[in-house]
């Protein structure tokens, strides 16, 4: 018997321009105790379908179907069916304590005293893997970490005592390691409680890790469905094949730049805001024409580092050299002179909505200033050339940012960064918000421009599978400190630092056999606190932590072209080595 049964669900939106079809006769079902998945790119109508199932679409939507049933009864939100949303920060009320948001759910479903509800809420939080539930109940959503908030949301969903849970992009906003934890938790909940789960995601890896049956959705229609094995190993539809291919990515070999002179060098740069954030004692060197990657989770200081490099933020201490010229951060702007440009993650937020694309681009060109100021006509020609190069049409110069799709806007972002002819391009998570196939196209474009023009590129991302494809060298940042540096190929195939290993192990391959085996690799927090500023930043969640890891900060130990900041590689902590010893991974 199907727990959730949806037959011929259609949705139309009434917009200012008339009707827009969002869903066209979509049918799917979820069996008892199974995990089913719906996969599709953004705009395919996945979320609309889920909201329509829950009966939560707004007034502008017209829903028709031959029946949406949960346990053969019409759907009533919160009764037998619960939902988890992507954005755990915004889906919890910011001004109400977490505990109360759970107890009110419990009390909405069964009559019980406040005390009973509180006890039940603590149980649920414990079930969702939150330690010290009593403490968390009294906190507000903003005081919890992203993973913890998503656990609280799961606890709320469980408070409905559901027969089926719909999880709409449950881990998209989370770090890779936390994502694995949450996926694992969802799996365990399905096993323990016997509830069914419907996972909606754009990420083939997430679907592969959880689902036994998969529906593929595209422009409001389900185009293929089958068991996970069928979909991943023997896809029939062309679109599914393309989706899988785009996820796996292409192996473009990064250019060999070992001989090139260093373009930018930073030494022992520190920038601290308050106590936790920022970067501490970071050194790196980018050579002309190379693709250098900076990896790390949210809060690891990647963006701070990018801002220091562009001169937006002055460092507290440390030095930056650009082509052998020292920049002190404050007077540095002149010396950079537009030679370092940036592509941002938020393509919409980084374009002024009141300027046409042409205006935005020629503004970037004007900023160069100096003697070689161009006439407006010449500037216009450059703008049009640049747009063509970025894969847009010259006519797009007169349009406004909101007339473009996300992918096109990111192309504009790239055009704007490239038009002053920079020598270093910083891409700060520039591709994270894009769908796999769009990302692939734009990445290809960027790399070909990078190669022909010999622009060095600092590629900042949390996504190691992406970094692996594009970069020649990599630095891994862990909570503001450098954890490991080396050639990308070597680091990714044989990580030395436990943190790098954890990051690599959290990458979900689009393959049910491999992804299904992934276990949370983050060691249970060993309950110890490092003295603030002292100790390895990863020590609290490192499975290899030794006593010394809590007491002192490891320096960077250098072996050939690799560096790692871990006591496992130090002689004083893990024993003396012979002079001709060749260092290998100690983990």
């Amino acid at each position, binding site marked *: 018997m199907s727990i959730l049964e949806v037959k011929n669900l259609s949705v139309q939106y009434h917009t200012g321009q008339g009707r827009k079809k969002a869903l066209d006769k979509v049918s799917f079902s979820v069996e008892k105790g199974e995990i089913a998945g719906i996969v599709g790119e953004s705009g395919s109508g996945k979320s609309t379908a889920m909201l329509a199932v829950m009966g939560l679409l707004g007034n502008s939507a017209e829903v028709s179907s031959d029946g949406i049933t949960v346990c053969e009864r019409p759907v009533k939100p919160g009764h037998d069916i619960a939902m988890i949303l992507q954005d755990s920060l*915004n889906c919890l009320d910011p001004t109400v304590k977490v505990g109360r948001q759970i107890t009110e759910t419990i009390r*909405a479903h069964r009559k019980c005293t406040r005390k009973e509800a509180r006890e039940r809420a603590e149980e649920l939080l414990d079930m969702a893997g939150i330690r010290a539930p009593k403490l968390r109940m009294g906190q*507000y959503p903003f005081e919890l970490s992203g993973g913890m908030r998503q656990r609280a*949301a799961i606890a*709320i969903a469980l408070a409905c005592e559901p027969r089926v849970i719909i999880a709409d992009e449950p881990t998209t906003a989370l770090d890779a390691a936390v994502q694995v934890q949450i996926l694992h938790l969802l799996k365990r909940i399905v096993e323990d409680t016997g509830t069914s789960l419907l996972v909606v995601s754009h990420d083939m890896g997430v679907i592969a890790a959880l689902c036994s049956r998969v529906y593929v959705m595209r422009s409001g229609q389900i185009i293929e469905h089958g068991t996970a094995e069928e979909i991943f190993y023997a896809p029939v539809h062309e679109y599914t094949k393309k989706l899988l291919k785009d996820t796996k990515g292409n192996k473009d070999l990064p250019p060999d730049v070992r001989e090139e002179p260093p373009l930018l060098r930073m030494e022992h740069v520190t920038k601290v805001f308050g106590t936790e954030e920022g970067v501490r004692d970071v050194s790196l060197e980018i050579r002309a024409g190379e693709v250098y990657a900076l990896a790390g989770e949210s809060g690891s200081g990647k963006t701070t580092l990018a801002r220091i490099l562009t001169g937006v933020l002055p460092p507290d201490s440390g030095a930056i050299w650009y082509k052998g010229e020292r920049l002190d951060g404050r007077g540095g702007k002149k010396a950079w002179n537009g030679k370092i440009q940036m592509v941002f993650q938020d393509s919409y937020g980084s374009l002024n909505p009141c300027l046409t694309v042409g205006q935005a681009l020629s503004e970037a060109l004007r900023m160069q200033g100096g003697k070689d100021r161009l006439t407006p006509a010449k500037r216009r020609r450059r703008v049009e050339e640049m747009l063509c190069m970025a894969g847009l049409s010259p006519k797009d110069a007169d349009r406004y940012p909101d007339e473009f799709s996300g992918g096109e806007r990111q192309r504009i972002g790239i055009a704007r960064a490239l038009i002053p002819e920079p020598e270093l391009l910083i891409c700060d998570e520039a591709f994270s918000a894009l769908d796999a196939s769009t990302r692939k196209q734009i990445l290809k474009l960027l790399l070909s421009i990078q190669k022909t023009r010999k622009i060095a590129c600092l590629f900042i991302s949390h996504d190691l599978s992406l970094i692996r494809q594009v970069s020649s060298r990599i630095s891994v940042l862990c909570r503001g400190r450098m954890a490991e540096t080396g050639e990308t190929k070597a680091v990714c195939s044989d990580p030395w630092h436990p943190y790098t290993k954890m990051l690599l192990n959290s990458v979900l391959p689009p393959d049910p056999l491999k992804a299904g085996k992934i276990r949370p690799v983050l060691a249970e927090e060993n309950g110890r606190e490092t003295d603030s500023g002292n100790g390895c930043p990863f020590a609290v969640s490192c499975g290899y932590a030794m006593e010394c890891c809590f007491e002192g900060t490891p320096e960077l130990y250098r072996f050939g072209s690799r560096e790692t900041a871990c006591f496992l590689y130090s002689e004083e902590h893990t024993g003396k080595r012979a002079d001709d010893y060749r260092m290998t991974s100690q983990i």
Partner: protein
Amino acid sequence: MIAYTLKRLATGIVSLFVLATVTFFLVRLIPGSPFQNGGVSTQVVEAVEEEYGLKEPLLDQYLTYMGNLVQGDLGVSYQEPDTTVAEIIGRTWPVTASLGLVALLASVFLGTGLGILKAVSKKKAVREGIAAGGMLLAGIPNFAAAILLLLVFSVKLRWFPSAGLLTPAHYVLPMISLMIYPMAVISRLTGNTLASEMGKQYVLFARAKGLGKGRILFTHALKNAWIPVLNYVGPVSAFLLTGSFVVESIFTIPGLGREFVSSITNRDYTLILGLTVFMGTVVILVNLVTDLVCTWMDPRMRRAYSGK
């Protein structure tokens, strides 16, 4: 939080000092003497001015006044030499404040209620009616409303008395003319912020977890929607509590506003200054309280100030 409050109080005192200084010199720019009166001869006026110390250099007068002000002495009124300015405030402010408080409460409750209706009503007529009505009412100046109300309900229909503030019935018309504008603005603000809160993810999630409509509206959405509204209510309550010159004059209410107008026509320097300083204090305190309440309502700010 305490440090913040103290800092705000300190800046408030500085503002009051500037306010008193500017007013002191501006008042002297009004042509004529406080004691000039049709039949009084120049010699008498000059003699009285001498007695009140108005012949001394302006700077000395200023220093004397500020010295007294610091000790809490607002001086005596020139028109009523037997009463001090503090006594006049003590007599007139309760009248103004009681009317202002009633108008404030009425506009907040009615405005919020209408705003909620505007945001959640399923009937298009109700939503658009409130929006249009709010726009219309916000466009009526309070003197026009006051005169209109006076003509219709007091002169023509004789439902309510027209002057003074003796019985509850006396309150009705001035209260309505005072509250129209703030009510319209509050309903529009609440309607807009509530509508945007209702579109947020946490409301969607609350609906998904099966909460009732009332609970979602009152414990979740309204709480968040009210924080920006409160930022408007603060200054409005300061405005209402210090009295409207126009409304008090039209309904002949013996309040602070009317006293202020007559003090200016009489060039009653000490009274003008005293009333200005008093109203400034009320405005600054009310705004401080508003900011503190806003901070307290947002747990992020609360935690940031309490340093946890």
